[in-house]
């Protein structure tokens, strides 16, 4: 054990991939089965010892219990284990990292491997161990690198610190992504800046995978060694297309994103976990408003339905047109900004819900649904604009803001995102309204409500006619997702990952295989996004890092289980000594939450600190008030400051956009 010198930020002590099929006879050497061992400088006899013993024990136990081993604990370490068709994956961490986190770490690693290399057995047939060792090492270092212990506990995505960034930039990023999707071969994308997510349309598990390649290209070496890498000589060398492998369920979610048609059903409680996957992450993540959304009477937005997704098949309708972007939508938007007409009248000029939704979708060549969705909501925004004046405000802002036509698009689009974002977009709109509008001539709430209901009725009828039973579909996909995860290696589908780098900024798109061979698609996407990317990069670069979060006499962490993101004011790579108690308590509470479904909130205290944790189906929040005196003695005492934590947390965290009400 001498060589297990633990480095501060390494959460992995050992990791190995062992192929049992190569060690079956008496005489077979254990080393023959070792596909990869981390740290690579571990002496061979030690490697053999660990692989041999753990493989033997795991096999023995799994035979006794007729199920694979999941976790193997030793006194000082613990191993997350994954056994599938003769391969044994094992990853060890120090004992005080929660079990759930260790297992999540290993799963991520395996997913990454399969994402870039396809099925394990096949990839070891196609590539040499050395090649794949390089990959595994990279994935490992990517997964452990550069994030805080809190990130490790939650295994969450690293996002840019949205508190210091103009939210409009985030919207801009979301818009770029949506613009790219106008090419029907583009499934979904994300934008990363210096290893952090700016905006993503993919489910968190996919975003994580895409990010690895970004770090890889960032270092710019040995990328060509990988399979399927066709370094884009055209259009410029800053784009790369890589072969990647998606599970059927992932692909299904990308191709047929579940649409939230809640409003067409009977009302559901708002707390119900809605896990529609195709999210533009930035939109809801950027919580800038420090006002209670309930102050504003725009709740009608929240029930605005998204249109049912276009049921037209992508492939059949895709006709390679000279310019993929010469669609009605684009022209209309362009014309709006070019003509620079008073936007209000422009909005009104849009037929009030009569613009044929289906027609637009069709003319777009059945482009992936968000565009169609946006289209519809664009109309809705227009329709409502006459009442709430928001659209006019947006248009006005549009006019003022350097003629940046995208702003407007952004704002109208913000109405169109699935309802997870509705609250945010609502708030954003409100904020914009506040900024720009002095006289709020919004119509009465009743009036609006009426219209919305009318719309809902129409919408639901439509949905029923289409016979789209998306909810059940969505559910089944999710359960499928769980069950498929184990067999993911068997039926992976080959896709491509297109990446376009502009200095620290990367646009990553998951594209259909034909994207690569299509004569114009790549160029179209490249040229259409280039300018915006440059602009975005420049803005992000000039954004000062700023003070790390709003510091207060408290520490908090807010974990969004659905988007897999973390908001916290614990800064720095390794939490300082003052944050240790908080991190420790958070780890304990998180693992408690993870195995007790009914647990809603908890307060734990020792002599020096008290930590409050609360969770809903969608989020977990942890809060510690600093500098509380320890004068009470541990006896039950209502005066104990620990018990005022829930109200303090509710109060304090509002300004971080965390609403615990």
């Amino acid at each position, binding site marked *: 054990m001498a060589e297990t010198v633990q480095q501060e930020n390494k959460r992995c002590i050992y990791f190995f991939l062992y192929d049992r099929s190569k060690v079956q006879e008496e005489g077979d050497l254990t080393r023959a089965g070792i596909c990869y061992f981390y740290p690579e400088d571990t002496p061979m006899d030690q490697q053999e010892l660990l692989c041999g*013993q753990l493989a033997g024990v795991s096999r023995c136990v799994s035979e*006794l219990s007729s199920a694979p081993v999941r976790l*193997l604990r030793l006194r000082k370490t613990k191993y997350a284990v994954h056994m599938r068709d003769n391969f044994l994956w094992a990853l060890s961490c120090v004992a005080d990292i929660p079990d759930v986190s260790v297992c999540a770490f290993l799963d991520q690693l395996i997913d990454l491997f399969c994402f870039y290399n396809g099925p394990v057995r096949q990839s070891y047939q196609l590539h040499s161990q050395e090649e794949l060792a390089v990959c595994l090492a990279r994935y490992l270092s990517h997964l452990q690198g550069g994030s805080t212990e809190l990130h490790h506990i939650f295994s969450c995505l690293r996002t840019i610190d949205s508190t210091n960034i103009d939210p409009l930039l985030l919207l801009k990023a979301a818009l770029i992504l949506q613009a790219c999707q106008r090419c029907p071969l583009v499934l979904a994308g994300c934008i990363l800046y210096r290893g952090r997510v700016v905006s993503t349309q993919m489910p968190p598990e996919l975003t994580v995978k895409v990010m690895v390649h970004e770090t890889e290209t960032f270092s710019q070496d040995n990328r060509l060694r990988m399979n399927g890498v066709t370094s884009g000589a055209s259009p410029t060398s800053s784009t790369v297309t890589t072969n990647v492998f998606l599970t059927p369920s992932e692909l299904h979610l990308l191709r047929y994103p579940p649409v939230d048609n809640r409003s067409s059903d009977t009302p559901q409680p708002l707390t119900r976990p809605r896990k529609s996957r195709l999210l533009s992450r930035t939109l809801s993540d950027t919580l800038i408003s420090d006002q209670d959304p309930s102050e504003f009477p725009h709740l009608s937005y929240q029930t605005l339905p998204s249109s049912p997704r276009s049921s037209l098949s992508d492939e059949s309708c895709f006709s390679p047109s000279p310019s993929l972007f010469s669609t009605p939508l684009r022209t209309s938007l362009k014309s709006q900004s070019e003509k620079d007409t008073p936007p209000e009248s422009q909005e009104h000029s849009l037929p009030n819900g009569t613009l044929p939704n289906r027609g637009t979708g069709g003319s777009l060549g059945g482009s992936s649904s968000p565009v169609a969705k946006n289209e519809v909501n664009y109309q809705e925004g227009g329709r409502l604009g006459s009442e709430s004046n928001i659209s006019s405000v947006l248009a006005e802002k549009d006019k003022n803001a350097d003629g940046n036509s995208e702003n407007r698009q952004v704002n109208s689009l913000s109405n169109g995102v699935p309802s997870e974002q509705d609250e945010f977009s609502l708030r954003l709109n409100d904020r914009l309204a506040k900024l720009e509008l002095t006289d709020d001539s919004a119509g009465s709430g009743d009036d609006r409500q009426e219209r919305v209901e009318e719309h809902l009725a129409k919408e639901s009828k439509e949905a029923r006619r289409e016979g789209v039973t998306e909810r059940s579909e969505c559910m089944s996909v999710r359960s499928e997702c769980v069950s498929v995860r184990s067999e993911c290696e068997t039926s992976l589908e080959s896709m491509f990952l297109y990446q376009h780098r502009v200095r620290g900024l990367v646009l990553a798109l998951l594209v259909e295989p034909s994207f690569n061979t299509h004569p114009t698609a790549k160029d179209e996407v490249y040229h259409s996004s280039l300018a915006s990317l440059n602009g975005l990069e420049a803005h992000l670069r000039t954004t000062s890092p700023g003070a790390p979060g709003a510091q207060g006499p408290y520490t908090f962490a807010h974990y969004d289980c659905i988007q897999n993101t973390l908001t916290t004011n614990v800064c720095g790579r390794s939490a300082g000594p003052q944050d240790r108690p908080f991190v420790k308590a958070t780890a304990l509470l998180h693992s408690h939450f993870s195995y007790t479904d009914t647990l809603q909130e908890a307060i734990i*205290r020792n002599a020096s600190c008290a930590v409050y944790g609360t969770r809903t189906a969608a989020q977990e929040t942890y809060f510690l008030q600093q500098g509380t005196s320890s004068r009470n003695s541990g*006896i039950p005492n209502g005066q104990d400051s620990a018990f005022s934590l829930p109200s303090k947390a509710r109060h304090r965290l509002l300004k971080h956009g965390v609403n615990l009400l």
Partner: protein
Amino acid sequence: MKCLLVATESAEVLFYWTDPEFEHNVQEQYGASQEEEGRPPAFEDSINTLFAPIIISCSTMADRLGDSYTSFTTENNHVYVLNQFDECLYIAVNGDGEENEEDLKRKIYVMKKLIDIMFGMVTLSSSLLRKELRPQDTEQRNRVWKKLQRLLETYSRLREQDQSFLVEAVERLIHPTLCEQCIEFLERRLVQQINSSVERAGEEVLHAFILVHTKLLAFYSSRNASTLIPSDLLALIIMVQDHYPSSFDLETTPEELESTSAPDIFFTPEHSPSDQDSGRLSSDSPPVFQFVDPDVQMAEDSLQTLEVPAPDPMTPSRVFLESTLKEGFCPMMPHSMYCLPLWPSITLVLLTKIPNSQVAMHVYGLLDAFVKLEKRLSEGLEGAAASRGQPPIQELRNKVDKFIRLLATLDFQTSHLQSVWSEFKNKAFTRSGPGITRALVPSCRSMKAQLCAVYRQCFSAECMGSHQRLAPTLQERALSMVQEKLMDWKDFLLVKSKRNITMVSYLEEFPGLVHFIYTDRTAGQMIAPSLNVTDRSASELGKGPLAHFIKNKVWSFVATTRRYLQKGYTTVTLRDGDYYFCYFLWFENETGYKLEVTDIPNLPDDLAPIGMLAWDYYRKLLRFYSKNHQNEVVKCYELLTMHLGVIPTEYILQHCSQLARKLWEPSRIPLL
């Protein structure tokens, strides 16, 4: 699907226990592979084969990595927990989701505690322990295994059903007057009479107590006795429950009876008091003994159907208990335990000091010295340095010589010890020998083994012979004295033990309170409203599912609080479903003044489970806390409450503090 296995490092099975489901599972796996050969292999062999790779890998890892397995979890949530005690590896398995890792670890530690209590310091020598746990003689082995299996089942049942075994503290019957009367009776009449009798065969009653089910009615310790620590008392209650399974079963429905899977009840619970008055105890209720041809049994080497005849209740059990006397400390002092059934579920227990028990104290002192010497020598310290900070080696020499002389006067066989000792002396003290160096380590080991052998010879139950006991007539007299005393109370006590305190009496004062458990960790006692979940005795929680639900919640909350306590958190509140749970641990001085809270240690996961039965965490905690409170007696309390979630938190906290104040009083009833 449950299993518990004790094995040596070389994968020899020293003991196993399985439930029928596990056995079935194993036989299925083996039945398939060995069908051609006809007869399936003996169950013990299958177990051995199945676990051998795990056991061997475990010792390989320990040897080569200095780290060993503690648990495995599979994807279908089977849990395996492993723990090494000296050279014995304990493995506990659960595959039905009823026990988690922590429960299994606790089970292993309890098993170890029960083995310690039964075999004493013999457990310190692995070769001797192997002989004790796995005697060559099959019949004898069956007897030992059966006994341990039953103890384990009894423990599991109590942990499932009894709150006092949930929190691992003794529950007392709350009836101060009767309690006081009984203590006085035990002291003035019973113990005095026995200890002054000539029929006591050199034994002396040190402790006497009366149990109603698992609850303590009265406890008396004689003046020169060491305190009986809570851990030992709890283990003794398990043993008593094992002798006389409490008539829980009488109240359970037939289905429940079936599910308890205890076919080996040796006594029918219904003793008739009149029979007991009239004659010998052993004859009044013949054991349920199915005679089967022993040869057939041996051939199958199966324990499952072999019934062992019940021991005569007049024959004491040998138990090894911790003692702190003015002569010294001994963690495993031999005692005889007499369990005299007063009526079904009401038992008088006498713990006596046996003749020559001072030998145990000497053995322990010498063992301790040799262990320390060996440790120092293997660290490379030599000569005088090896005994630095310890009594000089010369002193050890004198002590051993004196000890051998003492044994000789007591007519014990000492030739082995003497030969090993003279070998040791030759090596250590003569010019020709290597002196006090590392070369002496093997001699230290054999001295330790010899000391354990002497201890075994003096105290192990078999070696003592069956004639060493309080005379049966004396026992009978004691029994009838207590029966007479409690005759009028008998029925009351049986009811009281089921309704010790009830939630009803707290509801008015604490609306919304569903349940609580208050524990005095210094005394190792707890108070809690009774939680009866059997169908026939409806509690105020109602019947059936709701009562079960609440019971399960309480059980899991106790597990939760332990996890947080292990990590240093002394206050935990949870909102879980429709309920609000609170847990507090605090310290007081003797007058009830609340002492300030300090940070308590954050323990690693691989330590013993938190509790009092197998490993007394709270004793360690008190010792830790007392370091800063040298001048006062520190007491430690725990309160656990369950409220309806709709009650505002401020009221819940107010309740908790009122409850703590209110309960402080009853816990003051003196134990002595």
